[in-house]
């Protein structure tokens, strides 16, 4: 099985490039290859002008990696973690101390600097993880699902930090499962499915293709849902999804489309139990692009790491 197949992308200096896809789509494999953790079976990649296989050490000196599993040592303090990573980046002692203190201050961890990471909250760990990736001031940063599993406030904090980094000139390759995150941070996006690129462009382009809002209608019975779907198919366009008593489809003008749907259903005398207008999720992107839901594809964990050997 191929974890990545015919994936070709170019990331411009100074921008945030988003890899969007569900679990098992190949995002993490991509990051692992580009950060030299895994060697590809075939194909090539150039990072900051260096080949990831033949010049792996030069690549390592020019990147920072922060992962979804917040790989900091929980038995060390925040400062000790940064000092360790700084030294392993071969910075001299004075630089390491200065950078560690700067970053702890910048990320709101100064008060917790001498505490064991074990006592940190999830959001603090992610910020420390990100700080560790930045100790050596790399021009390119890999962020592998930086906010997965975080509460909304911590997510907002982290987004603000990432935006500041980009403003200061750092290039970021971001993987995410959240359309909202990609939308907020990334200029350019590719959508991955099973190791293939199924769409690429700006977030605006993707949304235009998709429709800006999802209209979700809940009927009182499955029979009602079937009849309602029949009537609404005329306005729903290509991707209408029916699950039990719920019918949903993407629309451009949210409230107007909702009012239109209500009028049509009322005229046919079909009662509604509920109506929701919401932002499209990654799942909706998938439904629209592939005709299948993202979750259907991750029944079993895809063995992405096995197929790419050193």
């Amino acid at each position, binding site marked *: 099985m191929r974890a990545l197949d015919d994936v070709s992308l170019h990331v411009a200096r100074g921008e945030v490039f988003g890899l969007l896809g569900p679990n098992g789509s190949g995002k993490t494999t991509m990051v692992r290859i580009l950060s030299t*953790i895994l060697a590809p079976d075939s194909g090539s990649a150039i990072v900051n002008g260096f080949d990831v296989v033949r010049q792996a050490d030069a690549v390592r000196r020019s*990147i920072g990696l922060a992962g979804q599993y917040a*790989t900091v040592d929980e038995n060390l303090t925040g400062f000790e973690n940064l000092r360790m990573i700084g030294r*392993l*980046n071969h910075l001299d002692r004075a630089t390491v101390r200065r950078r560690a203190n700067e970053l702890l201050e910048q990320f709101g961890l100064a008060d917790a600097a001498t505490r064991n990471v074990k006592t940190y909250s999830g959001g603090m760990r992610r910020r420390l993880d990100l700080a560790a990736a930045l100790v*050596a*001031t790399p021009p390119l940063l890999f962020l592998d699902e930086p906010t997965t599993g975080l509460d909304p406030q911590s997510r907002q904090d982290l987004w603000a930090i990432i935006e500041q980094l980009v403003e200061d000139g750092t290039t970021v390759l971001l993987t995410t499962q959240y359309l909202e995150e990609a939308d907020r941070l990334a200029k350019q996006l590719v959508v991955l499915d099973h190791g293939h690129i199924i769409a690429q462009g700006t977030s605006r382009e993707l949304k235009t293709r998709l429709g800006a809002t999802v209209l979700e209608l809940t009927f009182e019975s499955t029979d009602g849902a079937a009849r309602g779907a029949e009537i609404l198919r005329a306005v729903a366009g290509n991707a209408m999804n029916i699950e039990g008593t719920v019918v949903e489809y993407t629309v451009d003008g949210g409230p107007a489309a909702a009012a239109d749907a209500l009028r049509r259903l009322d005229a046919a005398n079909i009662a509604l139990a509920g109506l929701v207008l919401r932002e499209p999720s990654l799942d909706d992107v998938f439904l629209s692009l592939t005709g299948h839901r993202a979750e259907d594809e991750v029944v079993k964990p895809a063995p992405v*790491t096995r197929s790419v050997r*050193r």
Partner: protein
Amino acid sequence: MNAPTQTPKGDLRWVAIDIWTIARRNLLTLIRIPISLVFAIVQPVMFVLLFRYVFGGAIHIAHGQYVNFLIPGILVQTTIFGAVGTAIGLAEDLQRGLIERFRALPMARTAVLGGRTVADLARNILVLVVITVVGFAVGFRPHGGVGPYLEASLLMLYFAYALSWGFAFVGLAAPNSETAQAMTFPIIFPITFASSIFVQVQSMPWWLQDFARNQPVSQAANAVRGLMLGTPTGNSVWLTLIWGTGALLVLAPLATMRYRRAA
């Protein structure tokens, strides 16, 4: 944006610094979780008490007292058992994604294992001192002199250090730390118990004697016992050094290769 300080590849000074950085991290962990250190000491103390007072009366030694036979053996066993910690520690690092982070850093490839084994060596030295004290408390009276006693200590630390690279390999090959621990037992039990650590090999059935007499752990036990008690060591000191060096030359590259592949 300032570029990261660059270092020429293969700079030995940085290899040493990388090893020290990792070793320091592991030693800090040891201090932060003192309970793990306590258990590293409790277990060998239990072995001392068990064999000194429970089994000791039933074990007969051709010459001298059993306690003098036992303590050098327990010291060898304890230093070898220390390598279980090497396997568990690396399996934990792997499981938690720390190894992944290290692999994306421009650090020396051998440093994660080098730092781990060096930190475990330091822990072994501490445990060795404690068990020596406990040994004296339960009646251990060696007559080999201080010089040979230190020689014996260095010899077993070297031997155990070499073996710890094999356990580093086990730790990297295991799917998680619990399995890593379980995987060490089928290796560590035969080599420590089917040896001259606790009993004289002559007391074993004939089919076990050949293995028990010639395997490296018995050589190490014989060498350490001879040096500490001031009795003849025969070839055992040299054989222990040769076994240790051989193990290091084979196991260290093997474990390093495994580290490069681990993910």
